[in-house]
């Protein structure tokens, strides 16, 4: 998936270069972004090579989506009533349900097992406000374009402005857990600060979205 998204980014960059070519002029050299490793995020400055603002914005979101679609994030943004777990995004064990407030049901709440910090001995992950994202914020199984439009829509992003979205991804403690998941879990790529910078750059370039696929 990550490799596929990388090619999407590169394809966008190439398309930018090709579509900005006007008749009679020599085609500019296609923009090819560096291939990011699975544990890193491209820096905002690396997208400067894409001269078209809207295309740069879409490419930036492609990098943001690498985090959103990482198991550390997407596992608790299910499109149903139960979360997933582990890198393979298996059904959560025990079989918990979201409940009316997205924090479980009486007797089996998220915080019945999850603490405010990772448990070293028992490996149970934890962070403040451990809970599921509301069903309106489902990310599991969604395309990059869908995620992009969802993130911009106050009806599906917790009523947040884009400025609040930047603040949320940059500083929220539960979001931040994705880079400090404890035990032997693979963190989300890059850092929370890098994600915040990418989201800000995406917003500053018009918060453009890739084409939404089903």
């Amino acid at each position, binding site marked *: 998936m990550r490799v596929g998204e990388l090619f999407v980014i590169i394809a966008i960059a190439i398309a930018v270069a090709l579509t900005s070519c006007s008749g009679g002029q020599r085609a500019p050299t296609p923009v090819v972004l560096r291939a990011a490793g699975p544990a890193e995020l491209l820096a905002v400055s690396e997208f400067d090579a894409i001269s078209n603002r809207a295309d740069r914005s879409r490419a930036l979101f492609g990098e943001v989506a690498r985090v959103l679609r990482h198991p550390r994030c997407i596992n608790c943004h299910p499109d149903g009533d139960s979360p997933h777990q582990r890198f393979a995004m298996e059904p959560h064990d025990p079989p918990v349900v979201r409940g009316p407030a997205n924090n479980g049901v009486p*007797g089996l709440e998220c915080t019945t097992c999850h603490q405010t910090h990772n448990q070293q001995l028992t490996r149970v992950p934890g962070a403040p406000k451990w809970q599921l994202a509301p069903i309106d914020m489902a990310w599991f199984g969604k395309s990059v374009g869908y995620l992009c439009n969802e993130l911009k829509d106050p009806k599906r992003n917790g009523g947040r402005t884009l400025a609040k979205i930047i603040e949320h991804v940059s500083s929220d403690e539960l979001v931040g857990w994705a880079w400090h998941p404890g035990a032997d879990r693979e963190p989300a790529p890059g850092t929370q600060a890098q994600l915040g910078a990418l989201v800000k750059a995406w917003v500053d370039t018009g918060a453009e979205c890739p084409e939404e696929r089903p």
Partner: protein
Amino acid sequence: MKIKINGADQTLDVDPEMPLLWALRDVLGLTGTKYGCGEALCGACTVHLDGHAVRACVTPVSRAEGRTTTTIEGLAGAQKHPLQQAWLDLRVPQCGFCQAGQLMTAAALLAVKPKPTDVEIDQSMAGNICRCGTYTRIRAAIKRAAGVSDEGNSK
């Protein structure tokens, strides 16, 4: 640290990261709460913190500081908890090892949902494992304690 367990104030001189279950069983001698899997996957160690069910095997004892802890030993008042009476009436336990946890989870459910539906019972009890397979009797006993008819369900 000072914690309140089953209505009594207790002072513990332990590592704040010690699992609550260890403090209950090994330090305070409250052995009604059982060690099952040690990974919050079976529910045998379920107790209440301020009425909310928690798995004591993965809960640092420091989380209990400033909160009210209730174990199976403190579930009943002067009389048996309605769930305990229903458990006896319907002879729910087989080996019994998981039943303290089953009761504590069921009590947390009934405190919020006094008349739970079958689905609500199943969702709340889904994380409490019983290797003897007493699930249908557990559900029937919860409904009996809640005063909900169990007609039509297999026993």
